[in-house]
């Protein structure tokens, strides 16, 4: 890992509207990965959703395994794995394979998930997601670090299991746990190498929750993480108004779908309405506007909150590829150097 004070990731949701030619979009996605590598980004993140209708979207593990070829310098983030859905043996071996194939570049981001269609399809329930999350994470860590594991979970049994291969990174790839609610943040402090701060919440909420996180770490006797990651939406334009005009429709569509999927039901009281008009929604939540202002926000996040890895979403549903690539380039050329100077 480099000693850069701030690292940058590109968040690839790979979401497109129905009717788009996904063969063509595959090439677009690979071009975004190549651009991120060339422009000096540090990581590439792919989210996980199944049955994503009305959106079209690629699956996480195959996508990361293919995209690593286009982006040989980037770390690869599962952002996040819907951990309660899966079997730990399956995930431990799939993720270890990605880590080995990429020469030790995996970051294992995990979270709970919230969509009924996913829970049902995996034969589980929203009610069971927390205990399953905890036991799955424990099993994966043990499979990665112990020679032989025997463990009886609520939905699996490891009977003298030795994984087919271990990750390249020792003892494990970094484990980031996504969390919205205060209780989930305390759990992240306990179980993860870092709290992976989500893109949905206001920075004001995050500042408050970072206190919750720090207190939890103190109680556990754990140090503040060396790497503290945050995901954000970003769009650069001469003014916030122009930014809103140009990216508003795409961003509004994305958050409308989040709201329909029920993302906000997992968010804390007082900051749990994603159905707001974009004007209000973006405030203190998205990085929209001039490069200078975005750089200042990032410098403040770094100095005040300790955030040193931001994963940026440049691409929302319906946004043309040229605009995405243009935004990535502007970010690399206009924002990154200013942040480097300012911290």
């Amino acid at each position, binding site marked *: 890992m480099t000693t850069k004070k701030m690292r940058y990731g590109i968040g690839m949701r790979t979401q497109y509207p129905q009717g788009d030619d996904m063969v063509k979009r595959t090439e677009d996605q690979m071009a975004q990965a190549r651009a991120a590598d060339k422009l000096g980004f540090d990581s590439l993140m792919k989210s996980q959703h199944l049955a994503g209708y009305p959106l079209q979207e690629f699956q996480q593990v195959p996508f990361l*395994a293919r995209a690593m070829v286009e982006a040989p310098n980037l770390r690869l983030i599962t952002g996040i794995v819907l951990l309660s859905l899966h079997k730990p043996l399956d995930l431990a071996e799939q993720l270890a394979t990605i880590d080995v194939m990429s020469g030790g570049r995996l970051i294992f981001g995990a979270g709970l998930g919230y969509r009924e269609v996913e829970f049902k*399809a995996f034969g589980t329930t929203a009610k069971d997601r927390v205990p399953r999350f905890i036991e799955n994470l424990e099993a994966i860590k043990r499979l990665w670090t112990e020679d032989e594991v025997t463990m009886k979970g609520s939905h699996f049994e490891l009977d003298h299991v030795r994984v087919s291969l271990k990750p390249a990174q020792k003892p494990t790839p970094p484990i980031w746990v996504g969390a919205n609610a205060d209780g989930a943040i305390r759990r992240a402090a306990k179980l993860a190498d870092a709290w992976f701060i989500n893109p949905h919440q206001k920075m004001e909420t995050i500042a408050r929750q970072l206190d919750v996180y720090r207190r939890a770490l103190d109680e556990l006797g754990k140090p503040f993480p060396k790497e503290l990651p945050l995901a954000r939406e970003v769009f650069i334009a001469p003014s916030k108004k122009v930014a809103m005009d140009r990216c508003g429709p795409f961003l509004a569509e994305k958050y409308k779908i989040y709201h329909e999927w029920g993302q906000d039901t997992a968010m804390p009281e007082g900051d749990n309405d994603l159905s707001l008009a974009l004007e209000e929604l973006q405030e203190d939540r998205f990085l929209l506007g001039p490069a200078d202002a975005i750089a200042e926000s990032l410098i403040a996040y770094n100095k005040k909150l300790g955030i040193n890895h931001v994963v940026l979403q440049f691409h929302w549903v319906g946004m043309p590829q040229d605009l995405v690539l243009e935004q990535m380039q502007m970010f690399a050329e206009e924002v990154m150097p200013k942040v480097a100077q300012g911290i």
Partner: protein
Amino acid sequence: MKKMQFGVMLRGVFPQGDDMRTRFAELMEQARAMERLGYDSLTKGSHFSTYPMQEMVQIPFLSRVMAECPSLRLNAGIVLLALHKPLEVAENFATMDLMSGGKMIFGCALGYRDVEFKGFGVERKGAGRRFEENLDAIKKLWAGGPVTMKGSHFELEEARISVPLVQKPHPPVWLGANADKAIERAARLGDCWYLNPHQRLDTFQRQMEIYKRALDACGKPFPKELPMRREVFCAPTHEEAVRIAGPFLKSMYEAYEEWGQDKVMPAGDNDISQRYEELARDRFIVGSPDEVAEEMLRYHRLLGVNHIIMSVQGTGLPQSQVLETFELMAKEVFPKVQQGM
């Protein structure tokens, strides 16, 4: 379509202590060699908890290797279908079919190892039923519309896969089968029976009659593509081929026996603990280019096989030998087989 297609199974199984990053780079080199030499397909199998061997996992491996061999078909041979949830399998293969430009082959079978069933929370007893309902759900999901279906271990409620398949109606479904009953299932549910690497030619001849009768019973024609996996090794002379490949094949079959592969094989052809010569007869294709070509043609003439998937590396054949064999086969064996058909 070529009269005979040739593929390689990159088993990618290596002993403890091997640096898997080095081995991975070698496997990518093998894939590039196959692309350059005009092979038709690349296969990756699936096992979990493979100790004492190390192995990379199927879905990420196939997704990664496709970048090295854009002309090759990619066979998941096989997916242990009873272990998984159908939505996830349908989604992963749709993404892979898209990323590969429609090159995926969906091989699936039941599996037989307790450590895998337990690890996935699956009762071995009900595995056949899970296999069937999973395949049913996957095919429905692949059709593209919303699917509502209640299975024994999942529920689909207006679920649709997130991207469409390139291949219509879906990637070829190859069903692996050892036992007679499983062969009937392959006839009923698969686009073809995927002949396994373990059984002798005479067993296949007997089972082919079962397969044909089962196809007739469902009113299905004999498949256009009949794939078979075999252990294959070729060297300039018979003696050299046996000297090099024999020990690797023998030790691999000892590991299979330890895992219990033989317990799911039919009576009369379920002893895989024999001496190499006994084990090899009508089971491995090992020899000089002429012998290998003639043996492949025999499987074609007697069974109708027209896609041979070769495991070459065994468990430890050195990289240089693997690459030499790939080249020797492409230059000396494949043309002879095509001419002989």
